[in-house]
C-alpha cells in the first residue's frame, strides 16, 4: 500500500521515470530514462521523501552468459584422474534480456515507515559513465569504487575513483561477462 503511494508520489514529481518491467521482487522498482535524471531523483528521494540511507550500489552486465574460459585456470592433471573437461561456455537462454549495456542498481531505504526502493539506470557498455552520488551519500564513495573496480563504470564527480578490491596492476574488470585474465606475475 505504502509502496504504491510512494511510487505514485515519485512518478508525479518525475514523469520521465517508469516502473521497471522486471522489478526486484517485493520492492518498488523504478527505471531512470537517462543518466541526467539520476542526481535530481536521488536528491529528491533523500530531501523530500526521507530516504536518507543508501543501501546498495551495484551493477549487472547484460552482455550474456559468462564465459569461464577467460579466467578459469587449467587445473593440474592428477595422475589418477582423468583430465577435467574444460568448463563449457553457457549458452544464451531464451527470455533473458541480454543487451549491450550495464544496469546500475541503487537501493535506498528510510528508517521511519521502513521502506526500500530500487532504482535502475542503464549505461552503454562502450564508455560507461554515470554521475557519482558521493556528494549526496558518503557511503557511495566505496560502493562506487567497487563498481568501478569490478565493472569499469566511471563515476563523474567521484572524489577518489581508484580500484578498491583488486590489485592496481590488474588488467580488465573481473565482473564483466567477457573478462579474460591477462597473465601476470602471480601466474608464474
Amino acid at each position, binding site marked *: 500500500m505504502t509502496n504504491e503511494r510512494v511510487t505514485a508520489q515519485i512518478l508525479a514529481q518525475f514523469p520521465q521515470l517508469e516502473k521497471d518491467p522486471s522489478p526486484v521482487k517485493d520492492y518498488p522498482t523504478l527505471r531512470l530514462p537517462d543518466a541526467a535524471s539520476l542526481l535530481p531523483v536521488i536528491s529528491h528521494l533523500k530531501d523530500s521523501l526521507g530516504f536518507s540511507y543508501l*543501501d546498495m550500489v551495484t551493477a549487472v552486465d547484460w552482455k550474456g*552468459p559468462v564465459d569461464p574460459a577467460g579466467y578459469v585456470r587449467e587445473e593440474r592433471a592428477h595422475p589418477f584422474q582423468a583430465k577435467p573437461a574444460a568448463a563449457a561456455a553457457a549458452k544464451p537462454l531464451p527470455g533473458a534480456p541480454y543487451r549491450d549495456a550495464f544496469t546500475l542498481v541503487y*537501493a535506498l531505504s528510510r528508517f521511519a515507515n521502513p521502506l526500500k526502493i530500487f532504482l535502475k539506470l542503464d549505461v552503454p557498455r562502450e564508455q560507461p559513465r554515470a554521475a557519482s552520488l558521493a556528494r549526496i551519500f558518503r557511503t557511495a564513495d566505496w560502493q562506487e569504487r567497487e563498481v568501478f573496480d569490478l565493472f569499469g563504470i566511471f563515476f563523474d564527480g567521484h572524489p577518489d575513483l581508484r580500484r578498491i578490491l583488486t590489485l592496481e596492476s590488474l588488467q580488465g574488470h573481473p565482473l564483466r561477462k567477457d573478462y579474460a585474465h591477462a597473465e601476470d606475475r602471480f601466474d608464474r
Partner: protein
Amino acid sequence: MNTAPAPSRSELKTDQLFVNLGPQHPSTHGVLRVGLTIEGEIIVKAEPDIGYLHRGIEKLCETRSYGQCIVLSDRLDYCSAMTNNLAFCLAAEKLLGVHAPQRADALRVAMCELQRIASHLILLGTYGIDIGAFTPFLYAFREREMVMDLFEMVSGARLTYNYIRIGGVRADVDAQWVARTREFLEYFKPRLDEYDTLLSYNPIFIDRTRGVGVISAEKAADYGLSGPNLRASGPAYDARRAEPHCGYEKYPFDVITAESGDCWDRYHCRVREMRQSVRILEAVLDGLPGGEILAKVPKIVKPAPGESYAHVEGARGDLGVYLVSDGGPNPFRAHVRAPSFLNLSILQEIFLGQRMADAIAILGSLDIVLGEVDR
C-alpha cells in the same frame, strides 16, 4: 646538570610520520592495512587498504549452481556463516517463489540467534584483548565453544555449516539438541552479568572506550552503517523489525539502541543484544512447530528470469543478497551487500583527530570480518 632552557615549540622539529597498521597485526582481525599519517600522537590521515582477501565470490557464483553458492556464502563472514546461508537462501527462494515450512523457519531463527551470540562473543573476547584485557577472551570463547558444539550436532561443521538450504534446512533437530540448547541458555544467562562485571563496567575499559570514536546518527546513516554500529548512534533500524523474515514478528525482542555512538556503546549494544537473542531462542524452543523441514524444491534450481533482493539482520549488520536470474541453473549475477564493508568505510573519517592508541579501540569496536569486506 643541564641548565640550557628547553627549546620552545616553534624551535622543535616536527614532522608527519607514516605508520602502517597491518596488514598482519592481531588487532586488525584479518588482513587489513590502514595507512596512518600521524602528527605526534594525533592521526591526521587514514587510508584503509582492503582487498587482501578478495576471492571473487560474486564471480564464482556465476559459474556455480544455486546450491553450490550456499557453500560460497559460508566463506563470506566466516564468524556467522548461518546468517550468510540464510540471506542467500531467502533471495533464491524469492526468485523461485517457494516458502520454507514453519518448522524450518523456526529452526532458522534459532540458528541465526545462536550465531549472533557466537559472533558477539568473538567481539567481546577480542575487543578485550585489543584494549588490553586478556581474561574476558577466555570466558567468551568458553561459551562460544558450547554454541559451536550445538552447531556441530546439527550440521557436522563448526564454522562453515551449509546448514540452511533453499526451501528449508538440511537436517532436523532432535529432542537432545533442544535439551542441550535449553541447558546452554540457562548456563549463559548469568554469564551475561558476569561479562558486565568483568569487562563492561571495568573502569580502565570505560576510560579507554567512553567518548572515543563518536559517530553521530547522521554520519552513521550517511556512511551506510548498519547493525549494532548504527543502533549505538541512535537509529533503531533492525531488519528483523523493519522487514521481518522467517517469522521474526512472532518473537519478543527489543531493538537495542544507545545514544552517544562511542566505542563503549557499540560494544555494549552487542552485550545487550545477546540477552535479546536468548529471549528469542527461548520463545522459539517453547513453540517449536512440528512438520516438514524442507519445502518442495526442484533438484536443479532454475528460476525464471527475474531479480530478487533479500536482507537479514546479521550479527554485523544488514546483510543483503541481490540475485539476478536469466533462467539458467546458475545465478546470472549475485551481489552481497556486506555490512562489514560499509562499516569499515567510516574508518577514514572517524580516525581523524584521534590518538594513535585509540585507533585500535575504534577499529575493534566496529567488529569487522575481512572475509566479508573483501568477498
